[in-house]
């Protein structure tokens, strides 16, 4: 804290920079944050880890004034404060760097910086002051960015630096970073960590939200572990290790028991070899993916979301062509030169329940019966010579609703009027109705209530027993463990491990998911 003047020190006082007391937040029936209390020490780098949906981001959004807590108290420098909007948070010296950048691509770095703090009607004065301040911040923290470059021309790492600069420019002394390394290359991540160290040296408090345990070990002073909306542990980083954190994060939850017979794998229906995907910015999203999927087995892909599972599903279902490697699906070879498309894959017998059912799997404004033929609308009996047979479409939907217990069973109701669980059952029913040879399922039970979860799991196993090759992608490790005959673990776009479903060890998989498999030897 040597960079603080005595006056600054006096203003900031001692004791924790932020105290949260019994913060509680629900979204409808989902209890996202349960009576969380935590202290963020002044001038420290504090990590908050947890699986997806553990409540980390919600908690920080409450601190930043994006959501209002249902109950509890926020204290800044020992004084209770009311956070009604990010404006309040900024006034209290809190700044947040979001996972998805909030920059204007067609503005320069400097223009982005002064946005919302233009300093008067005429830009020139504010711009000169901002340029000087940018220069100072750059020198002090190693945050060098060309002030006149267009944001669109910057790399992801540089854009993130602009975000951090923006926050510091507003006078933030407490910095919240939400999954900052999710979009960065390893080199950029290292650089980010050096910046965080420099910030800490200058007395800035940093809160780091992440699910990557190695980052926690590398930069934090202390760490909170969250699970299902609660803080389950606080550790000083030097007193803990990857293995303990992984165990705390995943928890020793009761394993949902699914009665299922031993798999009887048949012929290989899907084979991926050296699949890779590079996006338009040159970021490698998938790297050397190879696996086989056989008839009559369920393969589960475990991993924290954002490690390439979404992209893998897109390639397997024909939505996105691969950048390299080869894919063989039911006898059709797909590669860069011969991309597939979703209609063709469907015709080959590949059904796909997308991860994001609202955005992809259904059309919210359509009647349920119309959603129930999405992708199959050119097939008999739904249409003859392109004329839709609406009674047949309605009858088909009514049949699906009865078999999958979709409530309310009204085919004419708008798709968006159904609850998440019933929407999911409808989409699953649609995809299973055509007796697919390969069934790709993304997040089978996301946002689905417990009764429907059991039903969906049983249907997936039934489908397997009928000889379907089932691939499940889920961020719920429990789900993978209870369903999969084989488990593949994805991390940073690669398959980092394969585990037999029957002999799976939760802790070991958790560690692989967190990218800590190299440290496994030392921990075990």
């Amino acid at each position, binding site marked *: 804290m040597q960079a603080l003047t005595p006056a600054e020190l006096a203003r900031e006082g001692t004791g924790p920079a932020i105290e949260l007391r019994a913060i509680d937040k629900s979204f409808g029936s989902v209890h996202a944050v349960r009576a969380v209390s935590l202290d963020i020490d002044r001038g420290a780098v504090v990590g908050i880890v947890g699986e997806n949906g553990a409540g980390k981001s919600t908690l920080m959004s409450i601190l930043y004034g994006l959501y209002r807590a249902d*109950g509890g108290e926020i204290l800044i420098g020992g004084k209770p404060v009311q956070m009604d909007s990010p404006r309040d948070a900024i006034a209290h010296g809190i700044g947040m760097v979001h996972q998805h950048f909030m920059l204007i691509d067609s503005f320069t770095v400097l223009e982005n910086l002064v946005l919302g703090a233009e300093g008067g009607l005429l830009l020139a004065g504010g711009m000169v002051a901002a340029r000087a301040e940018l220069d100072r911040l750059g020198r002090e923290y190693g945050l060098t960015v060309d002030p006149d470059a267009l944001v669109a021309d910057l790399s992801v790492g540089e854009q993130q630096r602009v975000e951090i600069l923006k926050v510091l420019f507003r006078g933030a002394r407490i910095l919240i970073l939400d999954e900052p390394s999710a979009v960065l290359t390893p080199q950029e991540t290292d650089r980010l960590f050096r910046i965080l160290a420099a910030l800490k040296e200058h007395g800035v408090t940093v809160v780091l939200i992440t699910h990557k345990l190695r980052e926690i070990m590398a930069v934090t002073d202390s760490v909170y572990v969250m699970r299902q909306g609660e803080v389950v542990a606080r550790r000083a980083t030097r007193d803990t290790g990857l293995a303990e954190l992984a165990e705390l994060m995943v928890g020793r939850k009761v394993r949902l028991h699914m009665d299922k017979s031993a798999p009887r794998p048949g012929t290989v229906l899907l084979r991926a070899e050296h699949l890779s995907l590079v996006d338009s910015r040159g970021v490698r999203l998938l790297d050397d993916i190879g696996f086989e999927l056989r008839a009559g087995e369920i393969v589960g892909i475990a991993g924290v979301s954002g490690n390439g599972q979404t992209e893998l599903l897109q390639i397997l279902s024909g939505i996105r062509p691969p950048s390299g490697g080869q894919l063989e699906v039911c006898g059709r070879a797909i590669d860069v030169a011969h991309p597939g498309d979703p209609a063709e894959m469907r015709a080959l017998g590949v059904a*796909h329940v997308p991860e994001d059912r609202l955005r992809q799997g259904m059309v919210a404004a359509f009647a349920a019966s119309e959603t129930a033929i999405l992708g199959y609308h050119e097939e008999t009996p739904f249409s003859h010579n392109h004329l839709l047979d609406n009674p047949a479409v309605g009858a088909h939907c009514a049949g699906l609703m009865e078999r999958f217990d979709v409530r309310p069973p009204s085919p004419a109701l708008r798709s968006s009027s159904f609850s998440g669980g019933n929407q999911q059952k409808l989409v699953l029913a649609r995809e299973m109705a055509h007796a697919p040879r390969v069934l790709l399922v993304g997040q089978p039970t996301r946002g689905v209530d417990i009764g429907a979860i059991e039903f969906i799991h049983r249907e997936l196993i039934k489908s397997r027993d009928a000889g379907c090759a089932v691939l499940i992608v889920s961020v719920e490790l429990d789900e993978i463990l209870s369903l999969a005959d084989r488990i593949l673990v994805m991390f940073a776009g690669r398959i980092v491990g394969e585990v037999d479903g029957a002999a799976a060890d939760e802790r070991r998989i958790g560690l692989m998911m967190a990218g800590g498999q190299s440290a496994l030897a030392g921990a075990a």
Partner: protein
Amino acid sequence: MSASRRPPPARPLPLWADVIVLPLVNIALAFIVVGIIVAIIGVDPLRALRLLVVGAVGSPQSIGYTLYYATNFAFTGLAVAVAFHAGLFNIGGEGQAYIGGLGCGLAVLAFDGVLPAWLLIPVAIAAAALFGAAWAAVPAWLQAWRGSHIVITTIMFNFVASALMVYLMVNVLIAPGSMTPQSRTFGPAAQLPALMGSALNLSIVLALACCVGVWIFLWHTSWGYALRTIGHNPAAAVYAGTNLRRMTMLAMCLSGALAGFVGVNELLGVQHRLLLDFQAGYGFAGIAVALMGRNHPLGVALAALLFGALQQGGAEMSFDIPEITREMVVVIQGLVILFSGALEHLPRPWLQALLARRP
């Protein structure tokens, strides 16, 4: 921090209120403002209103004119609605109607000495559709393959169409010896008979057929299904395997063809020759017609009738009241468009509050 309390979200309006009451409230609001303006220029608003209504529906002839105008509004309204269902905002109806008319006129000029009426008229109608579709296909292609925004390109194509027509009429298609840029008069085989002693002609049957056809296409064919899917949720359309580019082309070509039929009503029905600016204003008014008609063919038909009545009644009104000039009529139409189009949702919260108060 105390528990936050928010008012419960407003319940959406029931269908009958959304489809019937809301448009009526919008029109009523527009007429109130119109009444105030009319009173300011020193005319009795009630007298003006009476003249407007009588002018629009007071005699068979005025009804005929109302329906004739409504025919044009129905074509362009349907054109906007079809594109809208695909998530495309086609504001190039003006140019598509113009070029559709060109196609219609060229077909007649080429064949009116050769083909009998029963063959010539379908050929002319097909030519109108083809030319209108082609004019819409270029912006559609630019959007689908090059990412040029359809709003920008379609509006620019209106100006291109206008310039092209002026060139063709002045230099190429002008009748020999004529002092005005008009083609020769069409042969009798290409002239649709007038009905009810007015400009109304058989094109209204085509307009009704288009309303029914659009309804069948959108809700009873798999193409219409795919088209609505790309409009409501492009990501789901990609997931379903729909070719977005092809559907964009299809939607815009249909839209352009519908707009092109304005040429049929104007040239075969009324003018009986190719000339300049026969489409003036109908393309843009189609946007308001589609908005007011909630992009449903039935709604578009009703909105087209209203706009037709305003057009005809407004003309009669300005004829009888010298203070109300031609420009004043445009102001009145503009206000109706403003309230039913741009300010469409203005009274919605009031209506919701009113309905919520009932048990």
